[in-house]
C-alpha cells in the first residue's frame, strides 16, 4: 500500500498545541505549524459531529491584525484600495468577506474584515500561509496615519455547529443574540475576547479571538461541555468543501480572478461603479463580458472521489478544466468536488467526465453548497 509521507522540521506551534497532544491528536505540518489533522474519533466522526452538535477548532495559525486610523472613513479607504469589498458602508460590528487583489485582478488571499465598535479600527483575519505576505503587502500600501498592528499574541478558536450558540451562551450570554457575520468584543468565561459569529463549515458558530495565555483554558472549558468535541483540519476541509467554501491556494490563488472564482458577489455595486480596486479593469470587463473559466461544484455520479488535480473533460474527451478540491463528503454520503471549467460548461447539470486513474468517470456540474447552510439570522 502506498502512503502519503509527512515531514516535520522546525514547525511553529499554537497556544493549544499541548492540548491537542493531550487529546491524542495526530499532528501534521500545515502552513508552517504543527497542527491536529484529526483526533482519535477520526475525520468522519468529527465531521458528522460538527453537523450534529458542536465542534471546536484551533485556527490560531491564522493571521489576526488591527488596522487603525483616525476614523472609519480613513481606515476603510485604506483597505478598499486593496480589496473589492465594500468596507466603507459596513455598520459598526459587521464583518465582510473580501479579497486582497493584485494588479491583474488575481487573488492574493481571502480575508475577513470586521468594522469594530471603536471608530477607525478594523479587525482583519487572513490565512495562515499568506499572513506574512498579506501584512507586508497591506503595510506597503497604507497612507499616512493608518497603521497595521499584528495580533501575534492572540489565539483563534472556532466553535461550529447547530449547538454552538446554545453552548457558547453559557460562557457569553451576549453572543446568543449576535447576528451571523457580526463581531464584537465581549467577555467569554471572564476572558476578554473578540467574538465573531462566522465560520468555515456552513454551520452556525463563532470564531473567538482570545489572548494566547487564556486560550487553552477557554478551549478546555468549551470542550468540557457535553455537546463539544475537538475537530481537526481533516474534517475542517471536508466541512468547508461541502459548504462550497474556497480554500486559498487550491480553489483560488493569484492566477484566478473573483469572477473566475465565482466570487463576483463580494464586489458591491458602489465598488464596481468606482472601479478603484486592484485589477478593476480586468475584473469589470469579466463581469460585463464573461470570464474564460469559472469555479463550479462537481458531483461525481459514481462513488470514486476525484481529488485535487483531477482533469475534467467534456463528453468528447477534450480537457475543459481541473478539480481544485475534491474528496468524500461525509454529510453528502458520497464524493464531491469543486474545480474550474470553461465557462461554456459551467451551467448546473452540465455533464462532464473526471479522469480518475486514467478512466473518465461521469459527473455533473452542481450548484453549491452541497449541504444546506444553517447560519444564524437575527430574530430567530
Amino acid at each position, binding site marked *: *500500500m502506498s502512503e*502519503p509521507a509527512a515531514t516535520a522540521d522546525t514547525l511553529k506551534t499554537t497556544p493549544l498545541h499541548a492540548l491537542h497532544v493531550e487529546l491524542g491528536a495526530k499532528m501534521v505540518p500545515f502552513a508552517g505549524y504543527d497542527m491536529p489533522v484529526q483526533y482519535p474519533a*477520526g*475525520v*468522519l466522526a468529527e465531521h458528522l459531529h460538527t453537523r450534529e452538535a458542536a465542534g471546536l477548532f484551533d485556527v490560531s495559525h491564522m493571521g489576526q491584525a488591527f488596522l487603525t486610523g483616525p476614523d472609519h472613513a480613513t481606515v476603510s479607504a485604506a483597505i478598499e484600495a486593496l480589496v473589492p469589498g465594500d468596507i466603507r458602508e459596513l455598520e459598526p460590528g459587521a464583518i465582510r468577506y473580501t479579497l486582497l487583489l493584485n494588479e491583474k485582478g488575481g487573488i492574493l488571499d481571502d480575508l475577513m474584515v470586521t468594522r469594530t465598535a471603536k471608530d477607525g479600527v478594523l479587525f482583519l483575519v487572513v490565512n495562515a500561509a499568506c499572513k506574512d505576505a498579506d501584512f507586508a503587502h497591506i503595510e506597503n500600501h497604507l497612507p499616512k496615519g493608518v497603521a497595521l498592528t499584528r495580533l501575534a499574541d492572540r489565539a483563534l478558536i472556532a466553535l461550529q455547529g447547530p449547538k454552538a450558540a446554545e453552548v457558547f451562551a453559557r460562557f457569553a450570554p451576549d453572543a446568543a443574540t449576535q447576528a451571523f457575520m457580526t463581531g464584537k468584543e465581549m467577555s467569554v468565561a471572564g476572558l476578554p475576547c473578540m467574538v465573531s459569529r462566522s465560520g468555515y463549515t456552513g454551520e452556525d458558530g463563532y470564531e473567538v479571538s482570545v489572548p494566547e495565555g487564556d486560550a487553552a483554558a477557554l478551549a478546555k472549558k468549551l470542550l468540557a461541555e457535553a455537546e463539544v468535541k475537538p475537530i481537526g483540519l*481533516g474534517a475542517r476541509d471536508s466541512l468547508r468543501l461541502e459548504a462550497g467554501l474556497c480554500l486559498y491556494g487550491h480553489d483560488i490563488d493569484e492566477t484566478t480572478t473573483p469572477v473566475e472564482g465565482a466570487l463576483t458577489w463580494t464586489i458591491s455595486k458602489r465598488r464596481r461603479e468606482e472601479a478603484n480596486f486592484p485589477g478593476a479593469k480586468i475584473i469589470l470587463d469579466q463581469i460585463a463580458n464573461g470570464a474564460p473559466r469559472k469555479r463550479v461544484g462537481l458531483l461525481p455520479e459514481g*462513488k470514486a472521489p476525484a*481529488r485535487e488535480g483531477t482533469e475534467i473533460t467534456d463528453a468528447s474527451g477534450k480537457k475543459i478544466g481541473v478539480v481544485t478540491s475534491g*474528496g*468524500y463528503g461525509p454529510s453528502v454520503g458520497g464524493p464531491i468536488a469543486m474545480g474550474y471549467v470553461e465557462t461554456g460548461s459551467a451551467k448546473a447539470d452540465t455533464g462532464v467526465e473526471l479522469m480518475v486513474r486514467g478512466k473518465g468517470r461521469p459527473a455533473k456540474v452542481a450548484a453549491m453548497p452541497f449541504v444546506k447552510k444553517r447560519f444564524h439570522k437575527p430574530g430567530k
Partner: protein
Amino acid sequence: MSDIRFTDQHEWVRVDGDIATIGITDYAQEQLGDVVFVELPEVGKDIAAGDEAAVVESVKAASEVYSPVSGEVVDVNGDIEATPAGVNEDAMGDGWFVKLRLSNPAELDKLMDEAAYAEFVEGLQ
C-alpha cells in the same frame, strides 16, 4: 490449514490451497482512517506480484493496494465496495479485497510471517 504472510506495504495474503486472499493490515486501516471508497479489479484479470490490485480511499487520500503475489483474480469482495467502512471494521477478515489463483507460490517465501510483520510495525512506531 491457511497460512498468512505480510508485505512491508501493509498488505496481507492468506493462502488456502492455491487460492490467495489479499487485504490490508489492521495497522494500514488505522493509518488510513475512515475508508470511504474501494475500487476492485475485474474477475479474470491477471495480476503480477507488486502490481496494483485495488485502490482504497480514506477521507484523507487515495492509496494503491499492491498484490503481494501473482495470479488470476477469481473473486472480489463486493461487500467492501458497497460498504467501504467494512475495511476499518475487520481489515484482517471480512474486509478482504481480492482472491487470486496463485501462479507462483514461491513468491510467498519472500514475504514476512506474522512475527516478522509484528516486529516491522513495532519499528515504525
